[in-house]
């Protein structure tokens, strides 16, 4: 087993990996940019190295710097988390050259699956159904227009190197195509340093179901059942759960088998995920394979009891998987809500800033994977994720009730968060009934929300008025003695009952 691991990431996922290492007795090395000096990952690690300015392209994305720190610190392995260098085959190549173990699949597996077009080709060849579309990146604007018209609108533009909703645009009609293409390419360029995009037919009312996989160097594979991630905004997952309400045992077994075949085709090692779109008739189409730890891995951990990060580390060290397929049990139901520093009432605009107070939920069946603390300034440079809140219940009903309970306990002030949004989703009839698809948030939820009557307007107004009242009095108290500093004005104040106490 490794004695020391470098975690080439920040925020909640760096903390997640640090926790696994600490529990395994492995020493940890954190890297941090100038704005992250006080971040939790720096404080939880055994060692921490500064790697440059805030911009990720000058710090967390610089391969040379990460490799240099790994060597200086004597780290034998690097865990890339998700994002940043996690699916960068050049980084995987470099680690191999430098004889540092990258905790993840081979560069070959990354390249094959990382290019969505090659991945589609590979999987299609193995007989797995894929969504109609191009299998090559599209070179010119003319081609984009031509192919889009061939497949027929609506179409999806997707970054070849993409992930996490970046570089992705839904185009409903030809008039939107040009500007969407520009945005998708520009986002792709800045997120992945690669602006190539491809086109897919857009499937109406699809549900997003994915299979979590683990593989080792010895050719063993297990799947850890499915997660459903249909609750999305801007094509980015915000709520995930396991099991999925639409997946039957037969479907689970079939999808698991297909996913393992896909993994086997690239001799996949470590943790990975095959994503599928499922249409209204429960047909599933391979979408892509994520060759990294997923943001939403905790829901699978909650229902299976398997620590996916520890398994990643073990197989990277050459060990065999500690579980066989028949040991995998999906017990109860887990839901994850991604808590972002965003304003859900203003189209999820990012709201970085200082966390002025924080109260995390606790009690039975609740897990919070957080990267912030009271007094932390959420930087503008990175993903605005605050934490991932996960609730487990013996069934979906209990999991939803528990999640709602935990969300109402969760207090984050100073920045706007998606917590209120999640509470409203947990209260939504369609969500509770399991009746939704990937368009649910944009198309159904917000419309229903607009019509909902709010109950406590009086209490809101009363409390705000009291706060204003006290603030005004405080200001008055602070100014008055200075302005007319005579004893008379002081006396005048002190005779008004109750005033002094609270000034």
């Amino acid at each position: 087993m490794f004695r020391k691991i470098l975690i080439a990431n920040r925020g909640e996922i760096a903390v997640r990996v640090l926790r696994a290492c600490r529990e395994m007795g492995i020493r940890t090395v954190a890297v941090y940019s100038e704005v992250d000096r006080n971040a939790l990952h720096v404080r939880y690690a055994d060692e921490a190295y500064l790697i440059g300015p805030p911009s990720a392209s000058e710090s967390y994305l610089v391969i040379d710097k990460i490799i240099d720190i790994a060597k200086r610190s004597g780290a034998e392995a690097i865990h890339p988390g998700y994002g940043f260098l996690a699916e960068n085959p050049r980084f995987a190549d470099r680690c191999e050259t430098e004889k540092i173990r990258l905790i993840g699949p081979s560069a070959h597996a990354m390249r094959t699956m990382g290019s969505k077009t090659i991945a589609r080709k590979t999987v299609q060849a193995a007989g797995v159904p894929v969504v109609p579309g191009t299998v090559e990146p599209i070179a010119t604007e003319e081609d984009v227009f031509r192919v889009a018209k061939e497949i027929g609108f609506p179409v999806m533009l997707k970054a070849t190197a993409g992930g996490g909703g970046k570089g992705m645009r839904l185009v409903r009609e030809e008039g939107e195509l040009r500007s969407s293409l520009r945005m998708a390419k520009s986002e792709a360029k800045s997120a992945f340093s690669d602006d190539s995009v491809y086109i897919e037919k857009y499937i109406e009312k699809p549900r997003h179901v994915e299979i979590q996989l683990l593989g080792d160097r010895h050719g063993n594979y297990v799947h850890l059942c499915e997660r459903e991630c249909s609750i999305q905004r801007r094509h980015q997952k915000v709520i995930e759960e396991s099991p999925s309400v639409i997946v039957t045992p037969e479907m689970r077994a079939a999808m698991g088998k297909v996913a393992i075949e896909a993994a086997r085709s690239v001799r996949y090692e470590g943790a990975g995920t095959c994503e599928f779109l499922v249409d209204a008739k429960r047909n599933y189409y391979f979408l892509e394979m994520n060759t990294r730890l997923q943001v939403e891995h905790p829901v699978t951990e909650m229902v299976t009891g398997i620590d996916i990060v520890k398994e990643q580390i073990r197989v990277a060290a050459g060990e065999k998987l500690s579980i066989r397929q028949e040991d995998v049990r999906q017990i109860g139901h887990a839901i994850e809500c991604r808590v972002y520093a965003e304003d859900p009432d203003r189209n999820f605009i990012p709201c970085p800033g200082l966390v002025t107070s924080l109260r995390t939920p606790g009690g039975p069946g609740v897990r919070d994977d957080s990267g912030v603390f009271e007094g932390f300034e959420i930087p503008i440079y990175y993903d605005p994720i605050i934490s991932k809140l996960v609730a487990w219940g013996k069934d979906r009903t209990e999991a939803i009730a528990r999640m709602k309970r935990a969300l109402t306990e969760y207090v984050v002030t100073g920045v706007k968060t998606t917590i209120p949004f999640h509470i409203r989703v947990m209260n939504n009839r369609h969500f509770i009934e399991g009746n939704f698809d990937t368009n649910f948030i944009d198309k159904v939820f917000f419309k229903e929300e607009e019509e909902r009557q709010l109950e406590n307007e009086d209490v809101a107004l009363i409390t705000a008025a009291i706060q204003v009242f006290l603030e005004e009095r405080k200001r008055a108290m602070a100014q008055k003695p200075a302005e007319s500093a005579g004893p008379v004005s002081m006396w005048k104040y002190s005779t008004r009952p109750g005033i002094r106490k609270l000034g």
Partner: protein
Amino acid sequence: MNYIGTIGEKEVRVSVRETGVARYAVTIDGQEHLVDAHQVQSSVWSVLYGETSFEVDVQGKDEEFEVLISGDCYKFTLMNEQRRAMIRAGGKGAAGKAMVTSPMPGKVVKLLVKEGQEVKADQGVIVVEAMKMENELKSAVAGKVKEIFVKEGEVVESGAKLLLVE
């Protein structure tokens, strides 16, 4: 103290009187409400209205409030009556409709218009990136770009003036 609350189109008169330690009588349009209110954590209040218990998060900037109760967000303005009278008299507060401001801290990625250019209402005029997402900001009104206050590549604060359309 007397305040004017504005909720959507509706205006209400609000007054606050302290009746004891952490106890208040708040009158809204003539109806008195007695509450026991404690500020327990930063902007979070524990309010007992009668015996009903509420946790209330009051986020307010200037006179604009967003109040959270059990995941519901109540938006309104609340202004001291005298202050409002003063502002009305001074005639402030008219401008700003045509000003495009940054809704979050971020970096100006691209200007989509030039000074003097005609724009339509809802036309994208500038792209601001925050946390790796690009956000195209639109002009609320049709008109001519009067002034651009930022350059491409510039880092801007939340609320920063970006450009003015008239």
